[in-house]
């Protein structure tokens, strides 16, 4: 019998994994620099768009909503500035998703996880929540010290203030969310006077809770354990993509400032990294970038700023950590010049796909008809023989008027010879060419009967074409079906 050797015995240390690992609290340090400024700018832009967009007005004429961006579930319409989409046009949304995916791939091929570092809502809101934490509880050292020490009244007050501000932001986030689904000014008023529908309060509650929990408490855990993108991204990236990289060819071996100067004075090589750990201190996911590209790195670039600040202070060139790739690290090591290739087959293909999807969507959008007609043939019975011997077919016609005003249309039929058309429930002044009024921004479904004196010995089916003409605008739409003889 072999002896069971535990890992503890093997390693001579405490390595027996516990059932679970408590979350390691991360205290990111405040940092200033280029990438921090970019992040502030993008945060202001993203949050500004999110919070203010529902308040933007867009005049669509009488009776139509004047909100620029509105998802109207009740009347099943989606408004986006000059575009008004009907439920059956939801494929535009599919197009947008495809576009978003390709854009993500292109960003990834060019600059790694730009999405994660700068644009992902989790990053943006976590960054905002960290800013609140900095402001109320102080910077990294103050927070570590305070958390290790006793709970004083001052500290309690600061923590309470932080939680309060977090909750206000979270609540505001949920509040902005529901404004996309109803007329914003009305809803704000209704919410304030407790007149709004329960669903609005429920969604504000859900968004408040999720924002508070994810951005305030889960933070980097979302990126490490919940988000699938780091895993997918690893399969999509290639060796040319620029990633936040520690240039170990320049940084190693690490040595102190003093020792480094002495070495260089003697003409010997010395690494630029002084092992100050600033890159680790500022990292919002608590990783050490010097261990190479890793799942936990969201590539926000804050370690670049932290390292640059140190390099400037000790008089060494900046960008010991910077956007770079392993190819260049290897090229420099073997004495070659750096090489960046943003134009590669991969990026060209992604860009071409993006352009194609954009073109297709734009074409579909510009050529979409605002007057439409669908036709459905009666199935039971398919055809009816009338007392005089003529044959009649019944159809259900669905008229779509996507314009914001009522309009009068004439219905014509091109089909069997001497075909006559009758619309059930419509007594038109022009019996051979019925006229109906289509309500604005609505569908109208009518039963239409076509009668023709057809000899039963003739062909069993003939094509029939329904043509509708807007009397005022001259817009025409048509739909074809069959005229069946029993």
């Amino acid at each position: 019998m072999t002896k069971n050797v535990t890992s503890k015995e093997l390693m001579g240390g405490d390595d027996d994994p516990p059932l679970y690992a408590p979350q390691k609290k991360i205290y990111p340090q405040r940092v200033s620099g280029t990438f921090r400024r970019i992040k502030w700018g993008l945060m202001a832009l993203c949050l500004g768009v999110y919070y203010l967009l529902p308040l933007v007005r867009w005049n669509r004429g009488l009776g139509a909503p004047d909100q620029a961006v509105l998802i109207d579930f009740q009347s099943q319409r989606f408004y986006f500035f000059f575009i008004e989409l009907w439920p059956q046009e939801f494929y535009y949304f599919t197009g947008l998703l495809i576009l978003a995916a390709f854009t993500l791939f292109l960003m990834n091929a060019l600059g790694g996880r730009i999405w994660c570092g700068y644009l992902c809502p989790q990053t943006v809101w976590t960054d905002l929540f960290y800013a609140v934490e900095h402001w109320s509880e102080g910077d990294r050292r103050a927070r570590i010290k305070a958390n290790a020490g006793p709970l004083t009244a001052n500290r309690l007050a600061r923590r309470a203030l932080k939680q309060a501000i977090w909750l206000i932001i979270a609540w505001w986030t949920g509040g902005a969310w529901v404004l996309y689904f109803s007329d914003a000014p009305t809803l704000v008023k209704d919410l304030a006077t407790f007149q709004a529908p329960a669903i609005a309060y429920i969604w504000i509650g859900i968004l408040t809770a999720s924002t508070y929990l994810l951005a305030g408490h889960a933070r980097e855990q979302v990126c490490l354990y919940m988000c699938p993108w780091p895993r997918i991204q690893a399969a999509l990236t290639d060796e040319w993509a620029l990633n936040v990289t520690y240039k170990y060819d320049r940084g190693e071996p690490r040595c102190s400032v003093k020792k480094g100067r002495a070495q260089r004075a003697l003409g010997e090589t010395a690494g630029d990294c002084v092992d100050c750990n600033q890159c680790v201190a500022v990292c919002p996911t608590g990783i050490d970038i010097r261990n190479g590209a890793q799942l936990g790195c969201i590539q926000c670039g804050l370690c670049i700023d932290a390292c640059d600040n140190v390099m400037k202070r000790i008089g060494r060139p900046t960008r010991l950590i910077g956007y770079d790739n392993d190819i260049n690290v290897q090229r420099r090591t073997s004495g070659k010049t750096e090489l960046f290739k943003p134009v590669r087959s991969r990026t060209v293909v992604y860009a071409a796909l993006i352009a194609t999807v954009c073109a297709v969507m734009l074409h579909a959008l510009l050529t979409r008809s605002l007057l439409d007609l669908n036709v459905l043939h009666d199935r039971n019975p398919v055809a009816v023989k009338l007392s005089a011997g003529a044959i009649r077919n019944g159809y259900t016609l669905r008229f779509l008027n996507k314009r914001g005003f009522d309009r009068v249309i004439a219905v014509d039929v091109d089909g069997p010879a001497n075909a006559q058309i009758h619309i059930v429930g419509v007594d038109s002044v022009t019996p051979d060419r019925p006229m109906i009024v289509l309500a604005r921004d609505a569908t109208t479904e009518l039963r239409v009967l076509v009668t023709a004196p057809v000899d039963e010995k003739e062909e069993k089916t003939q094509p029939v074409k329904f043509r509708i003409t807007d009397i005022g605008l001259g817009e025409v739409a048509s739909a074809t079906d069959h005229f069946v003889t029993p």
Partner: protein
Amino acid sequence: MSQHNDTDHISGRSTTGHEWDGIKELNTPLPRWWVLTFYATIIWAFGYWLVYPAWPLVSGYTVGVLHTTNRAAVTANLAEFEALRGEKMKALGTASLADIENDPALLALARARGKTVFGDNCAPCHGSGAAGAKGYPNLNDDDWLWGGTLDQILQTIQFGARSGNAKAHEGQMLAFGKDGVLKSDEIVTVANYVRSLSGLSTRKGYDAAKGEKIFADNCVACHGEGGKGNQELGAANLTDKIWLYGSDEATLIEAISNGRAGVMPAWEGRLDPVTIKALAVYVHALGGGK
């Protein structure tokens, strides 16, 4: 937790003992919140099990403390739906038949209501699309035994024909052969004459004048001069292209010999007045209504 004597020498961590293509899985603990969430879902499952129906038993199932059933939920939803529909149905009840046809919203409502009720009550005889069958009129065409105006259709649905209802349509095709009124050769002759009325071919050597005479003596009373029919009596129009039982000679001979007396049930009392109204509008809107 079981121990594996296998350790990854690079990270210094123990492994789970699982290996794929030379890659070993590190025994990495999960975050605490993840494990707690997992436990919470287990507790939730127990709660769910107690509250809702869960376990199938030999006869029946555990009902749960809430006694929730899908059937009860459906019944409640249907009751809610009926209450919701009540308002609109009331409008249907107060409007006149002509008003309903002229109001697109009411027409759509009546047609939708009529279609479902038709499927439940009328389809067995008239077919789900009201195309009829032999002996059961096609309600899509423009030929009507008892009249095709809105009011006439309503009247027929309400009281039926030969249904036993006091207000039902009455009148029948007599059995000229069985009752000994006409002889066989006369029946054949008049059958051919009837076929000629709607332009159908006639038997070789048939005496048209004799047929006309027999028709004038026996049939005109109900079917009218020239066989145009009479909707008061439910007498069919014999000059058109529509035949309830068929137009071939044998079918006509059978009808003349044995008579016809199809029954349409009265729906008053079995369906509520608003539903009958919706049904009348639906049938009228099928396209054959006058």
